[in-house]
């Protein structure tokens, strides 16, 4: 649909080219919304998980996890990369979603899709409430509020062991078949396609969202929040909206994790999860959507390979890596790739 509307726009602008002679060509492209058409590279990117299903049948569980964490990182990218809100407690919504889906299933409601939606609703309501606190104050206060709410939920889940299972985690989830047909099998085949489908659908929606006028206004707020009211944008309301959307998506990612692993551990709410999420996003590159997915993939594969050696070393290297990224490689993998591509293009032009 988006491809259609953008091509329609193009046709219209070609037809009306003579009417718009007064507006210089440069300004017109700057005023227009970003081209929403899918680039070939993006299509290739989305074929990768499909290919990996056939190429690495032994790693289906890891790939599903990467897609789930990637979805979670995407939700953080919406608020951090686009709206510029630094959150240290995003795991709160992930955990809420995971526990919602987990508890529904433990208490006999094993239908996955409705569980997923319920998780999104619960996390979204929490996100809406938290967003009122987040828009007050500046970076430090935001950081503290998100961190504090994350820790509060962790403590709550820890203390309410009679509901959540506490430190032992929530087990005994029984999922019914996806669409009533596909059973969640031991090899993780159904889990793979389920995660892939949810990730792709939500990605398409998010991609549409960030390229819409609303998404552009978020970038405006990130770049200069004080000036946005001057062009008629209600800053607080927009920030609340995107924070809520991000919470919904984080909740759905949490639900996916709970449903595909059929277990919810207390660590879904922990501070390390929020911090690692931030690392993945920065590693991949913020404000690009694809950065979140690439960052999650690189991080999870590296963790799978390295942390087996020694968890303490792994933490040391993440720390070192973060410091180096901040000092020398702003923009992460995607930022670096864009710089290289830009250099090539300049050479071609010269």
């Amino acid at each position, binding site marked *: 649909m988006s491809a259609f509307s953008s091509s329609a726009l193009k046709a219209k602008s070609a037809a009306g080219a003579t009417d718009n002679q007064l507006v210089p060509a440069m300004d017109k492209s700057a005023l227009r919304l970003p081209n929403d058409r899918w680039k070939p590279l993006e299509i290739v990117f989305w074929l990768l998980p499909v290919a990996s299903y056939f190429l690495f049948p032994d790693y289906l569980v890891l790939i599903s996890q990467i897609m789930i964490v990637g979805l979670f990182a995407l939700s953080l990218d919406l608020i951090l990369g686009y709206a510029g809100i630094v959150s240290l407690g995003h795991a709160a919504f992930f955990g809420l979603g995971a526990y919602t889906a987990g508890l529904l299933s433990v208490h006999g409601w094993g239908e996955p899709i409705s569980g997923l939606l319920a998780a999104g609703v619960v996390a979204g309501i929490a996100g809406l409430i938290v967003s009122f606190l987040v828009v007050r104050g500046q970076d430090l206060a935001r950081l503290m509020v998100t961190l504090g709410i994350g*820790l509060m939920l962790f403590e709550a889940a820890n203390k309410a062991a009679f509901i959540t299972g506490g430190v032992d985690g929530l087990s005994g989830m029984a999922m019914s078949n996806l669409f009533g047909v596909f059973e969640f099998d031991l090899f993780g085949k159904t889990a793979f396609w389920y995660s892939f489908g949810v990730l792709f659908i939500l990605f398409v929606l998010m991609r549409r969202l960030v390229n819409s006028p609303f998404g552009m206004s978020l970038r405006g707020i990130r770049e200069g929040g004080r000036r946005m009211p001057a062009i008629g944008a209600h800053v607080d309301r927009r920030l609340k909206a995107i924070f809520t959307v991000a919470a919904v998506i984080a909740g759905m990612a949490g639900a996916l994790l709970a449903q595909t692993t059929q277990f919810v551990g207390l660590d879904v709410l922990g501070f390390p999860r929020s911090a690692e999420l931030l690392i993945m996003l920065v590693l991949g590159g913020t404000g690009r959507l694809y950065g979140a997915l690439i960052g999650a993939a690189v991080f999870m594969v590296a963790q799978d390979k390295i942390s087996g050696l020694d968890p303490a070393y792994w933490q040391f290297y993440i720390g070192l890596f973060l410091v180096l990224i901040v000092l020398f490689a702003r923009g992460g993998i995607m930022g670096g790739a864009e710089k290289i591509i830009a250099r090539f293009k300049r050479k071609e032009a010269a």
Partner: protein
Amino acid sequence: MIGNFVGVLFDGIAYGSLLFLISVGLSVTMGLMNFINLAHGAFAMVGGYVCVTVLQKMGMPFLATLPLAFIAAAVIGLVLERTLYRQLYQATHLDQVLFSIGLTFMAVAGATFLFGPTQQPVNLPDWLRGQVHVLGLDLGAYRLFLIAVVVLVTLGLYLLIERTRFGAQIRASVDNQTAAAGLGINVSRVFSLTFALGSGLAGLGGGLGIDVLGLDPSFPVKYMVYFLLVVAVGGAGSIKGPLIAALILGVFDVAGKYYVPEVGAFVIYTLMVVLLILFPFGLVRRKA
């Protein structure tokens, strides 16, 4: 019951003054350089490990280890400020957060590598153990000592900042960097020395706090929230704000854990969120 309450209050004040000692450096660096430093707890941990090592390996008396903890943390702080931190003063808060999380992770992994993942024991001298009878109340000797040290340090800090030339330079730089530099104050040097002082105080707090807070490699992560909380609630850039905030938080945390252990740390986080909603810019707002 009343005696009980006074005991909780006393423990809370001791705990709060320790939090203040560790966090005051963070408050000043945040106010002075507008730098969100999540790695502040790592400096406290350095002090703690220096204390333990010197105490056990070299058999020095406990009191003599405390200045060493201060000096070690201050030197490390000075070196890191000169080499790394200062490159990020102009960076976004996100960069600062990521950088300091990275430092924290490295400190945690480094401490695990050097000292192992277990809690470090500390052998206090006899005169600091047990209880002291004051006005019919049994008060922990070590906690009394702790409060006394923090009172002395706070007085010293107050005199330093209000009565000395260097203190005037700090105040001037906090209020307006550009104007201060224009008046011939070497703002960059003030930054470095203040950072070193703040790290040193954190190190001192870490050494003093082993008996109260414990000491293991996860220390910087475990207490990060508390230190940030003191500064965020108290208001960055002042001394009075964090002092009030630290005492409030200390008393509420101890009282919460004593009277309602089943909700545990919930009390402190709720208090924090409520305080941040009521005072989004801190209890004591610095004059612009």
